[in-house]
């Protein structure tokens, strides 16, 4: 049977990469991700994982090495955070443009300056348009499960896009909690072998990858990525279903997770670990006879417009929480997307938890109170010092 261990989020991510039996890992250390690749280096060193571990001099090189490896047909993994992800920026677009199903764990951390190693989601949100699928997880179990699922999604012929699995730095990466670790054979069975048909190195069938895309074809390749993103929605749902049949764990419909939505007029919309705190508050309020709902957005890209509209059709007070800020627009990325698809509803945006500011039970309650009283769309920075 499976084993349950009390481990951190980074350990869960490393276990997942091991279970996915990756061929190549190229990574550079950065807080709060480091313990993930440290663990993987240990797995490789002591023979638990038969993979090539490439030590590189920067995150730019880490992603470059992953791209090179994935282009040969290898299953690749890397992990990073914050400044490291920013340094990868250029290569992220190349990974998705070359349609390479690389999986990366992002330990969400604020961007400097001022220097800050703590959690928010600005780093991965800044890579919104890089052509990567983005999954935001709520706990350590979902970290492990999502990285396994990510390979199944990324390598699907209808998708062929890289995936970043984003977990909140420190709040998940440095917290231990029970995580069920499935048997390796069952994961192998679920994932199958990655045998790319579109991009791999074979001397008997020479191909050119990453050529010049002249004005005559570049735009078509961008459209192809957009269409793959659209198809990914269906694939993510199917993978979530199949995963739940085999492993008995399920994350909403794969794209979004509804919590206590049925009777709720007030609904919070958020991503990542804060959803756990919101669920706690919802359960407390329920005991007092008050119904509040949560719609957890699991995939920010592709963005599940249709599902969100459907799930929120009866809600009137919508509070969108963002651990990022689009400076100069005074809204977070999720707030902007939500407002653009829910044109006839009251959608308030709450900027929370930047640079590790703790999001307390009282913060969540104050958001609920505010959105219920608000007359129009508003943006509020929650928990600022006077």
């Amino acid at each position, binding site marked *: 049977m499976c084993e349950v261990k009390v481990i951190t989020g980074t350990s869960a991510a490393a276990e997942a990469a091991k279970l996915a039996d990756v061929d190549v890992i190229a990574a550079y250390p950065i807080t709060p991700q480091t313990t993930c690749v440290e663990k993987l280096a240990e797995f490789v060193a002591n023979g638990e994982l038969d993979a090539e571990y490439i030590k590189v001099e920067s995150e730019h090189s880490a992603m470059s090495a992953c791209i090179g490896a994935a282009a040969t047909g290898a299953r690749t993994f890397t992990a990073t955070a914050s400044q490291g992800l920013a340094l990868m920026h250029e290569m992220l677009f190349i990974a998705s443009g070359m349609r390479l199903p690389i999986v990366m764990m992002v330990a969400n951390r604020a961007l400097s300056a001022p220097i800050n190693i703590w959690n928010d989601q600005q780093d991965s949100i800044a890579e919104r348009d890089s052509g990567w699928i983005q999954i935001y997880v709520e706990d350590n179990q979902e970290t492990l499960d999502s990285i396994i699922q990510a390979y199944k999604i990324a390598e699907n012929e209808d998708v062929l896009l890289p995936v970043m699995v984003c977990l909140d730095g420190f709040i998940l990466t440095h917290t*231990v909690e029970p995580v069920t670790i499935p048997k390796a054979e069952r994961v192998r069975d679920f994932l199958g072998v990655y045998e790319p048909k579109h991009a791999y190195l074979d001397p008997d069938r020479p191909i050119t990858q990453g050529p010049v895309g002249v004005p005559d074809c570049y735009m078509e390749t961008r459209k192809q990525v957009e269409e793959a993103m659209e198809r990914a929605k269906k694939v993510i749902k199917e993978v979530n279903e199949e995963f739940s049949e085999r492993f008995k764990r399920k994350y909403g419909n794969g794209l979004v997770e509804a919590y206590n939505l049925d009777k709720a007029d007030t609904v919070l919309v958020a991503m990542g670990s804060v959803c756990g705190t919101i669920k706690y508050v919802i359960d407390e309020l329920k005991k007092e006879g008050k119904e509040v709902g949560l719609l957890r957005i699991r995939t920010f890209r592709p963005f599940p417009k249709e599902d969100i509209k459907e799930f929120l059709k009866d809600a009137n007070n919508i509070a969108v929480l963002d651990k990022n800020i689009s400076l100069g627009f005074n809204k977070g990325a999720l707030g902007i997307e939500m407002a653009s698809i829910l044109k006839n509803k009251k959608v308030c945006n709450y900027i929370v938890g930047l640079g590790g500011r*703790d999001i*307390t039970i009282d913060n969540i309650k104050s958001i609920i109170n505010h959105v219920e009283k608000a007359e129009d769309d508003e943006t509020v920075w929650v928990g600022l010092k006077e």
Partner: protein
Amino acid sequence: MIEIRFHGRGGQGAVTAAQILAKAAFYDGKFCQAFPFFGVERRGAPVMAFTRIDDKKITLRCQIYNPDYVVVQDSSLLESVNVVDGLKKDGAVIINTVKDDLNLGFKTYTIDATGIALDVLGVPIVNTAMVGAFAGVTKLVTIESVKKAILETFKGKLGEKNAKAAEVAYNEMLKKYG
């Protein structure tokens, strides 16, 4: 849900103590969570770590502001840190000190964990002794599970010595407070 806050100094293993307690609770069939205070880590500087124990899955992700128990690994912290901040009215403090009669305005349990650590481990690292003391006072986790968690955390001889330190502290608390 039971919430515990550990106070220590960087390098004294407060985070490891919180994790060992969480693992011990898990071996006793409970749900658990342990995490450090997310701050600047410097050897010797005051640090905090947290453990939550519950009968159901724990989803709460904020820090602990109103703990049921406070574990103080170093009584010199009293000079600079208000260790009982936010402690629940009927909460308790378990503190490493040579002063038997120390009272912090809450139910206070004292133990000379440094003495035990120096005796058993030969170094003044008190985290495992303090988890043993916590088990002895609160009975929230069994000493068997604490020892199992310690042996899993520290390999070989180091694990055995630390398990011993926890057991000595556990027995001392049983003798002292019943």
